[in-house]
């Protein structure tokens, strides 16, 4: 019980004293240390240590055998050179841009349009709720199921999608959904089906929480619905849309599952994303050092992009007096 401190904050170590108040803690001084310490240890074990480990091995010629035998040597930035100069990686960057544009960005746009349409044009709460629940259902499925499902749906010869398009007369021959140049689009379609509800939910809840008085003011001021949407609603939802975008953006950089399940990056590596190559090189082919270099390059690209984006957001918000 000697650890219980009542009344004399001076007995705390200097780094532990509350600068703002002299109100003493009424719990043991070990409680806060414990509360902070455990998560820090867990993070050290599962995030920080592996990250340092990865940096270390990205500079070494580690493969699976070398890893277990402890024989790997320093090779400088050779792994990075291999990664950056490989056509496979450069192609995958093009695929990533395609996926970011028509996956992440398009999903946020589509989600926003759907959310605002739902809010502005559907006035019945029951219908709104039903639509939201239906839209969210795909998000609850595990990626392996989504991938398998869409592989069935998109099967060229007897898949439901081709059959439906044929029946509707929109196409005259089967679309080869898993040929080179098309397979990445198939993945994007499945991913859009899977994840559009996330930006939709975020933007919808953002719209619900906007102050109704502002809209009444706009009505009295005489603004048309379109004008209100463009000049009032969308600008006020800017931060919310940005959050939805950041979430989809970070997901895109770690996007492996559907690629793995639907195409395995094929045919001929035509639907590979950088993360998939890192996974393939590291977990499948045991080129640990090279896979580590892949991971770090991807990390660097995403970190730079996110930082720029957040900087921009902060500037916008500061100008408006929010931050």
């Amino acid at each position, binding site marked *: 019980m000697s650890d219980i401190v009542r009344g004399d904050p001076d007995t705390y170590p200097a780094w532990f004293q509350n600068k703002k108040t002299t109100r003493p803690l009424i719990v043991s001084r070990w409680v806060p240390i414990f509360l902070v310490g455990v998560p820090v240890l867990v993070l050290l074990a599962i995030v920080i240590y592996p990250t340092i480990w990865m940096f270390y091995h990205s500079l070494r010629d580690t493969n699976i055998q070398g890893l277990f035998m402890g024989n790997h040597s320093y090779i400088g930035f050779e792994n990075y050179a291999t990664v950056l100069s490989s056509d496979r990686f450069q192609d995958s960057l093009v695929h990533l841009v395609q996926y970011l544009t028509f996956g992440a960005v398009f999903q946020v746009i589509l989600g926003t349009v759907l959310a605002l349409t739902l809010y502005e044009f559907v006035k019945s709460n029951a219908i709104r709720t039903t639509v939201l629940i239906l839209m969210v259902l795909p998000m609850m499925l595990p990626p392996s199921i989504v991938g398998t499902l869409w592989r069935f749906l998109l099967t060229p010869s007897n898949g439901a999608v081709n059959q439906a398009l044929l029946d509707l007369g929109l196409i005259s021959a089967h679309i080869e959904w898993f040929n080179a140049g098309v397979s990445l689009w198939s993945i994007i379609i499945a991913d859009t089906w899977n994840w559009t509800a996330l930006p939709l939910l975020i933007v919808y809840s953002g719209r619900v929480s906007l*102050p109704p*008085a*502002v809209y*009444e*003011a*706009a*009505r*009295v*001021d*005489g*603004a*048309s619905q379109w*004008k209100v949407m463009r*000049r*009032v609603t969308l*600008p*006020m939802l*800017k931060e919310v849309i940005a959050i939805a975008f950041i979430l989809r953006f970070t997901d895109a950089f770690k996007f492996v599952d559907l690629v793995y399940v639907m195409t395995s990056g094929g045919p001929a590596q035509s639907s590979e994303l950088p993360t998939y190559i890192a996974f393939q090189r590291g977990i499948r082919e045991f080129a640990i050092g090279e896979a580590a270099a892949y991971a770090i390059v991807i990390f660097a690209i995403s970190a730079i992009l996110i930082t720029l984006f957040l900087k921009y957001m902060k500037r916008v918000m500061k*100008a*408006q*007096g*929010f931050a």
Partner: protein
Amino acid sequence: MADVTLTNVNKIYGEGPSAVHAVQDLNLKIDDGEFVALLGPSGCGKTSTLRMIVGLESISSGSVHFDDRNVSALEPQDRNVAMAFETYALYPNFTVEQNLAFPLEVRGFSADEQKKRAQNVAELLRITDLLDAYPPALSGGQQQRVSLGRALIREPDVFILDEVMSHLDAHLKFQMLFDLKRLHRELGRTMIYVTHDQVEALALSDRVAVMSNARLQQVGDRNTLYNAPANVFVADFIGEPPTNFFQAQAVESDGDLRLAVDDAKFTLHLSEKTRAAVKAHGGARFIAGIRPQNLTPATASDATSGQTTATLSAKVSINEYLGERSILTAHRGPVSFRALAPPETRSAPDEIVELAYDPANVMVFDPETEDLVH
């Protein structure tokens, strides 16, 4: 500019057994250039009334006219009304200048014209130094000014203010009262002001419309509301501290009609006029009311001033000293009531004081309808 006429206006929210009749048979005419306050406690229907005038709420039955124009079915933007909101309702992503100019932008005014008018309105409201700021960075008082400016900028026929001061602190409120009064004098526009604060309502407006329980109780200027309240509600609601009410019985002795207050063993004298009214009204039981302002400790000068005063003695139980005046809570038997005394009054608890009143200030109400007997 326009006058506003509400004819048999009703507002019913919902349907069936859960329907709420928020405004009942409201008739009100507001003259061109008049400043009218809609005053009443929360839930009395004043905000519903205002929203029907603006057009944000549909009218269940009845009609609203601006001059001879029936605007009942028109959208707000077609009525040429402007409104300042309780929560300011500024566009947070616009600068103050853009906020002010938005109604003009919507109507297709040129950028130059927008800038010029925003500048004028900003000068009128003394916010020229805020034109480039964004609303979230402004204080409540500044935001409310911008909101007023946005309402003023397009020179509406009718200018509507919805509880615009309820989020301002006392000091700002005082400043704002002054500014609104000045604006009304400079612009001469029809203004309708909704509030639950009688001080604001009485200070600002030419006439006050008092509402309660979905009905308009009385419309009148300060004197009418004060001295001839239409019913017990108005007498109780207007005035601070509230009016003293007594259950009383009419008694006549030697041809002099008085009101005997139950259980308190005192009678209230009435003026000639009130006596006649009470007689004409008939009945034995009444509610008598007298304002604390009209009940003050008797002084020697009362006796010599020649005024017709009556007195009653009562025992002081509480003396609240409020700086510029004191409120005495006195009682006689089980009946307690308030009187206003000069600040220097130093009545000790349980001291017997002689309170003087002018019989003309005794108000008499019918106990059933609660209407003024006059």
